[in-house]
């Protein structure tokens, strides 16, 4: 039986007149109530104020609202994750200063409260998991250019700073790409992935995975894996690969593409995906590898995708692995962004698995306003046996661009392929919008 695929443009009807470049989306599903989903993108308050809106759905992603949940004006980076007890965590970046926020329990019309602030940060990216009633929260980022984690083993109810501690990850380099990603397992195993630069600015780097066996509560966090070649913490999955940095795929700035996911049923099985390049014919090639012994050794490339970015891995309770990515292709000479969700049951060992094209949209319009054009990341999350996710893409309402169908909330005319304002008459210029998706019946 084919999976059920739902794709929804997240701009609400009452914001039909908006034309912002709503790139770099994120999504989190409340494990306590999966009908409750929160997303972010570079979407300012349509009325020009603050606080900043988050995308909130209370019906499993079928309809979306923009509700002011993030304090301050639109952030330069933002990331959200639900923990347990309907607690929502976020990390935002304003002018280089990170704020970790909490809403406990999350209320869709209440602004989140700050827990931690820290300067000289780049790309804070948060993960959270309820482990026995305590929320393990890990915010990866660079801190003054160095790979770091701000983490708490029990962040749900404590007063600020809610137990957050700081750890540096990389013993080999003082400089790292901004994407620091973690994967948390309910047995308190936590993996962290990062790029370790060989020189500044980067042309080559190591792809490193570190592990902690106790959610960072021990004396020397993230030192459980040691690389046999140099005896230092963190296994180098690749010792030296070219890494894009301020290279471009079409109008999209690429570099620092990284994702990691652990099997929720087996903490020994972990996947990592990264972007490397440029090489002839491909500005950035995504690689996917697997470890089945807690990160000690890694497979050869299980999947390679040329001219692609924004990898996001997730693993369902049934062990199905999903890889979301966006690939630049040429169709009759015209550049297009294809958003794929690849799904495998055997880790891409022998079979290609499912390849679901969620969207196939023009790349050369609309003209970009800022970097990143579609985002430095998209997002994929597994909840039970389903996949939920989000990506940003050109919002032309053309059903042909969405092979599995699409629902638009904002006013549109599929026949004329036009966006319409709230008056249903005025034509609205095309822009970049976030699109939610949900795959079930896998």
């Amino acid at each position: 039986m084919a999976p059920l695929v739902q794709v929804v443009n997240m701009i609400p009807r009452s914001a039909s007149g908006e034309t912002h470049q709503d790139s770099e989306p994120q999504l989190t599903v409340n494990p306590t109530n999966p009908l409750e989903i929160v997303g972010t993108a570079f979407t300012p308050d349509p009325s020009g104020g603050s606080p900043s809106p988050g995308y909130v759905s209370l019906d499993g992603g079928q309809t979306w609202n923009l509700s002011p949940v993030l304090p301050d004006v639109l952030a330069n980076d933002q990331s959200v994750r639900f923990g347990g007890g309907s607690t929502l965590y976020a990390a935002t970046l304003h002018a280089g200063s990170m704020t970790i926020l909490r809403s406990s329990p999350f209320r869709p019309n209440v602004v989140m409260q700050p827990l931690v602030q820290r300067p000289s940060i780049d790309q804070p990216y948060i993960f959270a998991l309820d482990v026995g009633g305590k929320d393990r929260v890990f915010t990866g980022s660079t801190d003054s250019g160095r790979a770091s984690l701000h983490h708490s083993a029990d962040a749900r109810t404590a007063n600020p700073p809610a137990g957050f501690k700081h750890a540096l990850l990389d013993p080999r380099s003082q400089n790292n790409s901004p994407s620091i990603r973690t994967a948390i397992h309910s047995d308190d195993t936590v993996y962290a992935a990062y790029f370790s630069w060989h020189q500044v600015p980067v042309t080559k780097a190591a792809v490193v995975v570190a592990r902690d066996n106790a959610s960072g509560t021990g004396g020397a966090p993230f030192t459980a894996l040691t690389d046999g070649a140099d005896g230092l913490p963190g296994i180098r999955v690749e010792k030296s690969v070219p890494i894009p940095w301020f290279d471009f795929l079409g109008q999209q700035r690429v570099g620092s593409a990284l994702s990691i996911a652990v099997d929720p049923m087996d903490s020994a099985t972990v996947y990592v995906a990264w972007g490397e390049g440029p090489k002839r014919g491909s500005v950035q090639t995504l690689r996917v590898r697997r470890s089945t012994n807690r990160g000690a050794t890694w497979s050869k490339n299980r999947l390679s995708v040329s001219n692609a970015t924004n990898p996001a891995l997730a693993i369902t309770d049934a062990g199905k692995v999903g890889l979301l990515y966006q690939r630049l292709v040429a169709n009759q000479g015209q550049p297009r962004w294809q958003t794929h969700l690849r799904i495998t049951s055997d880790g891409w060992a022998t079979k290609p698995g499912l390849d679901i094209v969620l969207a196939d949209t023009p790349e050369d319009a609309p003209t970009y306003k800022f970097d990143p054009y579609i985002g430095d990341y998209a997002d994929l999350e597994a909840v039970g046996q389903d996949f939920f996710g989000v990506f940003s893409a050109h919002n032309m309402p053309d059903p042909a661009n969405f092979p599995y169908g699409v629902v638009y909330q904002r006013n549109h005319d599929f026949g004329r392929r036009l966006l319409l304002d709230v008056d249903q008459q005025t034509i609205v210029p095309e822009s970049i919008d976030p699109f939610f998706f949900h795959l079930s019946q896998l």
Partner: protein
Amino acid sequence: MGDPTPLELNDRVTDWVKAARFIFTGTVERAGSLSPDFVPEGPNVAVVRVERVHSSTRALARYAGQVATVRSREPGTLPVGKRVVFFANPILFGETVALDEVGHIDAPADFVPIEGLIQRVTQDKNDDELAARLANAEAVVQGSVVAVARPPGASPVPISEHDPDWWIARIRVRRWLKGDTPAEVAVRYAHSRDIRWYRSPKPEPGQEAIWLLHRDGVDVGGVVVALVHPLDARPIDDAEIQRIDRLLHSGPGPH
């Protein structure tokens, strides 16, 4: 809270105009909320039909004819059928918009006075912002860009995606409006198109403008003044020059 008539466009209404991002005339259709999960129903919540938009951003400019949920400041002030001018701020964009009221007045027969007030207050708000930027400027000059270049020795590849990627613009000054600079002054600007910097000025060779030069604590090759705010490059036209002259010499305020 009383309901001042349009003829009583007093300081209170002026404050409401300053505080509101969505000003419109509408009629109360019924009690209740169109988005009860976000704005629970209550004695101060009503559904309003928007009749005429007086002030908004582009996203709400064409909201006339639509319905909105309004949460008033005081219960009992929005009876069904009442037609008023709302001064409000959006708190939700969903199928419909929900608003927190700042204040309201009875809808006038003639909108000219209230729309005139909105126009004046909006101009004053814009003037206040520019006046603050002018007051903090090290220098304000009118001039044209001779050349732009990355500073010698600077890496063409930033360390962070949010790095400003400082470039230097050399501006030949034709007129000094504030402060003292050399006839050809070097200023720093963020060449980055990253989300953090894309709205900051990007001088181009030959471009003439009024430039607001600020010290920001950064020194790149001895260049300590910078253009970092969207207001730091002003267009050259008579009205803007007169406006800046006025704000520099008398400050913002009613005019």
